[in-house]
């Protein structure tokens, strides 16, 4: 527990056939952080997470999770890490309580019954305790999965797109739980597609085509992305939007209320693009801070789904 890093991996590489799915991936996650793991579909997030908890053997590279070697000490890791799979993978033909009891016993926990009852209480699953898992809605399934993954008090939680396809309220509830766990000192690595969730992470790593592109505190991300943003405010913005969309020097344009955010990486070319609108009547053109959300929209559009 003295280790300062919950995850410390270097050069992780995984190939399926002749396709390199994760390429030279390194990451250091300090203890107690909520670390966001972003990237388009097929970029290798699940594969990376599986290597971190000993479910897949890397073809190259290695490292530790909670101080244990991910290749040689996968058993230690499995008893100290909580892993929530992307696809619901508890038993649909068992009830909520049976599933939790099963998991508690696989972890050889003492006084299984009280641990399970406590988890049912804590995750408000008690009223559904005797319901078959298959009959739960998506949100409740995720909640059950989180309960199952955290019953053995793991020091590190690996959550693989835990809120995919879940309604907004259930997502909010879920994140409340994640923050509760984080406050207790649990390190959380969570992959997600949702910007509003990314914002809530302390740090964010972005991966595309199996390569890590960015890894920084979320506050620093916009700067790292290197986008410069101008804000144009006023009336009659639609023609301006149409004119600037795809114009030379403009990499991204988005509407924010009664304003346009025009972003680009090359300051000079961007400058030239918006020059015609400067000093026009009724238009305010001013430099703006690139938001995290814009940064991610940029990262995402820059790397569409990575299958094949």
């Amino acid at each position, binding site marked *: 527990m003295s280790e300062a890093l919950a995850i410390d991996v270097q050069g992780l590489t995984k190939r399926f056939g002749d396709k390199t799915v994760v390429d030279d991936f390194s990451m250091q996650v300090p203890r107690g952080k909520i670390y966001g793991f972003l990237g388009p579909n097929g970029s290798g997030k699940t594969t990376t997470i*599986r290597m971190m*908890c*000993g*479910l*897949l*053997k890397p073809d190259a590279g290695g490292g530790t999770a909670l101080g244990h070697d991910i290749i040689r000490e*996968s*058993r*230690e890791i*499995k*008893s100290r890490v909580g*892993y929530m*799979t992307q*696809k*619901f*993978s*508890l*038993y*649909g*033909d*068992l009830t909520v309580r*049976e599933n939790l*009891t*099963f*998991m508690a*016993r*696989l*972890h*050889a926990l003492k006084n*299984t019954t009280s641990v399970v009852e406590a988890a049912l209480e804590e995750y408000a699953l008690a009223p559904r305790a005797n319901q078959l898992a298959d009959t739960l809605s998506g949100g409740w399934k995720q909640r059950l999965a989180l309960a*199952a993954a955290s019953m053995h008090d793991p020091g590190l939680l690996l959550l693989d797109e835990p809120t995919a396809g879940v309604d907004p309220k259930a997502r909010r509830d879920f994140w409340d739980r994640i923050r509760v766990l984080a406050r207790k000192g649990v390190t959380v690595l969570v992959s997600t597609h949702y910007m509003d969730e990314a914002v809530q992470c302390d740090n964010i790593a972005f991966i595309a085509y199996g390569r890590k592109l960015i890894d920084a505190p979320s506050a620093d991300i916009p700067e790292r992305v290197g986008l410069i943003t101008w804000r144009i405010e006023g009336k009659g913005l639609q023609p301006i939007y149409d004119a600037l969309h795809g114009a030379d020097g403009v990499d991204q344009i988005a509407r924010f209320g009664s304003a346009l955010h025009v972003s680009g990486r090359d300051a000079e070319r961007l400058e030239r693009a918006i020059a015609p609108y400067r000093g026009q009547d009724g238009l305010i053109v001013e430099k703006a801070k690139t938001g995290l959300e814009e940064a991610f929209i940029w990262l995402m559009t820059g790397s569409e789904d990575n299958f094949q």
Partner: protein
Amino acid sequence: MTSLSRILAIMGKEFIQMLRDRLTFGMMVGIPVMQLLLFGYAINTDPRNLPTLVEMGDNGPASRAITQAMETSEYFDLIGLTTSAEETESALQSGDVLFVVTIPPNFERDLLRGDRPQILLDADASDPVAAGTGAGAFPTLVQEALAPLLGEMSPPVQTVIHRRYNPAGRTALNIVPGLLGVILTMTMAMMTSMALTREAERGTLETLLATPTRPHEVMIGKITPYVFVGSIQVAILLAGARLLFGVPFLGSPFAFLAAVSLFILVNLSLGFLFSTVARSQMQAMQMTFFIFLPSILLSGFMFPFAGMPAWAQTLGQALPTTHFIHAVRSIMLKGAGFRDVIHDIWPLAVIFAVIATLAMLRYRRTLD
């Protein structure tokens, strides 16, 4: 360090899933019942009044007493007389008659002289049950028919029985041990292999692998509930065989228990091994059929083992079903004890050790 908690957890979970899967559970109980009824009744059709030809070489009172006795017995139905050997042959060949009785010329004279003449009964034993009961009853029948004529003389005739087409003369009794072997082979291997591939198919294997569970804990936990199911199947078959067909159990229950337990374990670990190779439940099922067919054909269940060509016997020796069926036949029908079947038990033990080791080595600890 093995965790009993984990093994029990997996066992319990497997039990619950099994009981909730009504269809599968029903099948596991239903298959033995159905097979027993099908095989038992289809083969054990009441062997009464079977068509019989008589070749009368002699027409004296003794000969007539015999044909009369056959007529009144429930086994034979005399449908005609024959005079030529060809006719006899073709009638048997075509299956028009199941028995041909040949009373030799001068039977009466030889009988009275005390020369102990021969009566020949040719039986079509391709239906072993029918032939078996008729042939079994024949010598007594002849003696009883002649008793009023000859008084308390010592056996005055020799009855010679030729079992045709199936010299081993296997009877319905043989079917039950065979069924035990075949049903256990199919259901046990199929159930475990499917229960495990199902976990991979549904993604629950990832949950299982993400816990600190060891391969042998999974194996023991997964297999044990099916040992229970196998025992139920055995109980059903034995009870059914006893009640419906009067199949005896002459040998050592201990030897039987040893053979059955070992055989169930062999098939369960075989299913486990299949599941480490199969990518889907469908493939798992196909693989069990791959072992199931030779187990039916080469194990001595369908054809007498001793009558098979050498290469088939060699293949058959590698099949656990062969040893099991042989052991159980000896125990149930010939009254064998543990010592008598040890040469069948140890191959089973070896096969089990090999398969279980292979299965454990092949069991994936990762998702690779």
